[in-house]
């Protein structure tokens, strides 16, 4: 028994190495059966994606005869997997959900199919109806559309109306960050165990990095200047980060350094915090009476600002087709269907209008049924998305397009490492100055590749 364990130990000792080879694309496995009418789709495990996995068989497959095999993964694992698959040209998937961050980078590497031509050919798809910032963020440097948005989001401030009413506070529709900090101080402890505000503190470029960078933008900071000078320890970046960290440390949620989107959603819907600054797509969940204690009692305001007019971020989960696919036609049919008005109506009728994958089409917001379901947040969501300007989100010109991230391959690593240290500052284990000075060194190394 022990010797067997021993052998097992030695085998796992080389696990790292076998992992490396498995990923090097030595043997690209393709699971597509030769019938040509079956496609493999890899997507992130958000509620909207789980809905489409349920609805596809009885509608899309029934109509077209194309069988769709879904693989659903949590966001982090999805990123790992999809990047490996596409970068190594393994060709396992015909369609994958990616975001605005990946599109420009992968397009330049020649990994993605141009989808604009497919969208133009399909008249019922109505490409012109797609919201402009969405289209812009999924367009490559050559002007071609490389991904079709499934749903889109910006960011906004959500608050507990009961608490504000009890304290006699009116939250402005367009608040400044200082106003929000003052309100957070006032409502902190409004109910036993309730904190003022939830802001993500979990390390990760897509977690803490997103709200923080949107705050840095409006405080006048940036990761890099137009000519690639790193600005991570510039006064503006420091001011914003200090503001963020102070606010979370003083009036933020319990366990802040471990709290990401999901934890904040929990804290907000369970009345553990009075306010929350995060994605507009969270509203649907907060308004769901089954899981939220504050359904119907949530107020919404635009993303708080300091120096810019707006500061909401911009993100979309979008369908992309790797160049390696052998089922381009079937895959494009699926993508066009999934991003269509027809599909939105299907979800509205079958599952309820608040579950519609919104935020990508102007017509969604003109639909009376959706307007009724999204009364309190639909308007702010649409206006925030329209106001978002990925090319120019701050006060100075940027080297890349993107609001809450820098669209370069190195940012996954840079953003993760810098936010790790800021998360440590939130936990009280280091200072913001030290975190950002260290981050500046990393950012300078990255910037060197581009100068």
């Amino acid at each position, binding site marked *: 028994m022990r010797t067997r364990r021993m052998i097992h130990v030695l085998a796992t000792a080389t696990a790292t*190495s076998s992992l*490396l080879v498995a*990923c090097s694309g030595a043997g690209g496995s393709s699971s597509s059966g030769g019938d040509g009418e079956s496609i493999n789709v890899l997507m992130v495990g958000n509620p909207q994606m789980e809905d489409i996995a349920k609805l596809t068989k009885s509608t899309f497959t029934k109509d077209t005869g194309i069988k769709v095999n879904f693989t659903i993964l949590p966001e982090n694992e999805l990123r790992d997997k999809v990047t490996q698959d596409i970068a190594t040209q393994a060709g396992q998937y015909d369609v994958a959900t990616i975001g605005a961050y990946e599109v420009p980078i992968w397009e330049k590497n020649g990994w993605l199919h141009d989808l604009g031509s497919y969208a133009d050919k399909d008249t019922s798809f109505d490409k012109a109806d797609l919201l402009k910032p969405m289209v812009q963020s999924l367009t490559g440097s050559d002007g071609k559309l490389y991904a079709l948005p499934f749903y889109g989001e910006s960011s906004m401030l959500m608050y507990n109306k009961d608490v504000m009413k009890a304290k006699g506070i009116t939250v402005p529709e367009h608040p400044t960050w200082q106003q929000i900090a003052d309100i957070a101080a006032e409502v902190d402890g409004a109910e036993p165990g309730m904190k003022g505000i939830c802001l993500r503190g979990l390390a990760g470029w897509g977690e803490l990095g997103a709200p923080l960078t949107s705050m840095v933008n409006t405080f006048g900071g940036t990761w890099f200047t137009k000519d690639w000078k790193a600005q991570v320890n510039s006064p503006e970046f420091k001011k914003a980060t200090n503001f963020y960290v102070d606010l979370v440390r003083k009036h933020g949620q*319990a366990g802040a350094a471990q709290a990401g989107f999901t934890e904040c959603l929990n804290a907000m819907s369970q009345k553990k915090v009075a306010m929350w600054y995060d994605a507009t797509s969270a509203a649907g969940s907060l308004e769901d009476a089954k899981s939220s204690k504050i359904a119907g009692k949530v107020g919404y305001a635009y993303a708080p600002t300091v120096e810019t007019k707006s500061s909401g971020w911009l993100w979309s989960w979008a369908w992309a087709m790797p160049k390696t696919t052998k089922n381009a036609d079937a895959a494009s049919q699926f993508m066009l269907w999934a991003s269509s008005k027809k599909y939105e109506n299907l979800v509205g009728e079958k599952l309820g209008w608040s579950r519609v994958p919104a935020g990508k089409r102007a017509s969604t917001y003109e639909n009376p049924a959706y307007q009724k379901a999204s009364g309190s947040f639909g308007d702010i969501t649409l206006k925030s998305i329209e106001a978002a300007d990925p090319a120019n989100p701050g006060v100075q010109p940027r080297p890349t397009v993107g609001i809450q991230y820098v669209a370069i391959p190195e940012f996954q690593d840079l953003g993760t490492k810098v936010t790790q240290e800021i998360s440590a500052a939130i936990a009280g284990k*280091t200072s913001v100055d030290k975190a950002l000075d260290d981050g500046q060194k990393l950012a300078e190394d990255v910037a060197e590749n581009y100068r």
Partner: protein
Amino acid sequence: MTALSAAPKTAPPPSRKRTSTEVSKWKRRFPLLPALVFTIVVTQLPFVATLVISTFRWNILKPGERRFVGLSNFTFVFTDERLRAAVLNTIVLTASVVLISVLLGLGLAMLLDRKFVGRGLARTLLIAPFLVMPVAAALLWKHAIYNPDYGLLNGTLNTVYRFFGADHGPTIDWISSYPMPAVVISLVWQWTPFMMLILLAGLQAQPGDVLEAARVDGASAMATFRHITLPHLRQYLELGILLGTIYVVQTFDAVYTITQGGPGSRTTNLPYEIYLTMFRKFEYGEAAAAGVVVVLGSIVIATFALRTIASLFREEVSR
């Protein structure tokens, strides 16, 4: 079979005897060869490939920029501040987990060595943590125990405070305030049963007459433990420590799930740092080089472990 048993009787010339045992040896080995080849293909070829990859500068997000860089990835591994911190964290984590769980395991093994009603049940319950999947255990600790809002620790504190009239206890963020202890404790919980099992086996293998003689001679319990039990347990302790070390060095689940290596990189150990290099930085060369260094380190530890097991077997035989 018949040839084998007949061989010694007929006393053939030495040379023939040698070849016949050679042949019989190969007869025995032959069915195992495919397994051996398979093992080599599965474990050794990837390692060779890793060695090759470790000499490249290769970021998969930048196709077309792959190039041979010799040993510079290893220079990076040995000079990178983060990796050095990860090595230190790995040592702290491994040493504390192994030592604490050996001590606790020893205590529990001594208790279980006595006869009492329900001993079988107690033993089963004590082994349970070792049977829980590492990820499940980590999730359990992160959410059910450490969570500042609904975790067991703060819940207990709240109840105690309420008992004394306060309406709310302190909200302690265990994971952020005590990141390393948080990971260590969850791992100790998992590894104590393993140590306990090994040490219990050692205790039960203790010759009863020696202990009885000690008792008859009037030795105190403490003295018996120090001079008889502990020396007897030495090899079991060594075995537990070495096997535990080899496993705990590779800890990934607990770090990934409970702290994500944070706050900052205070609980980032080598496996997690390599994971980050692989899947966030996508630098295959650097990750491979770090992997090679870890494998070499593990081999050193494993060699010691195998030697200990070998000495254990020798002891068995000589007894």
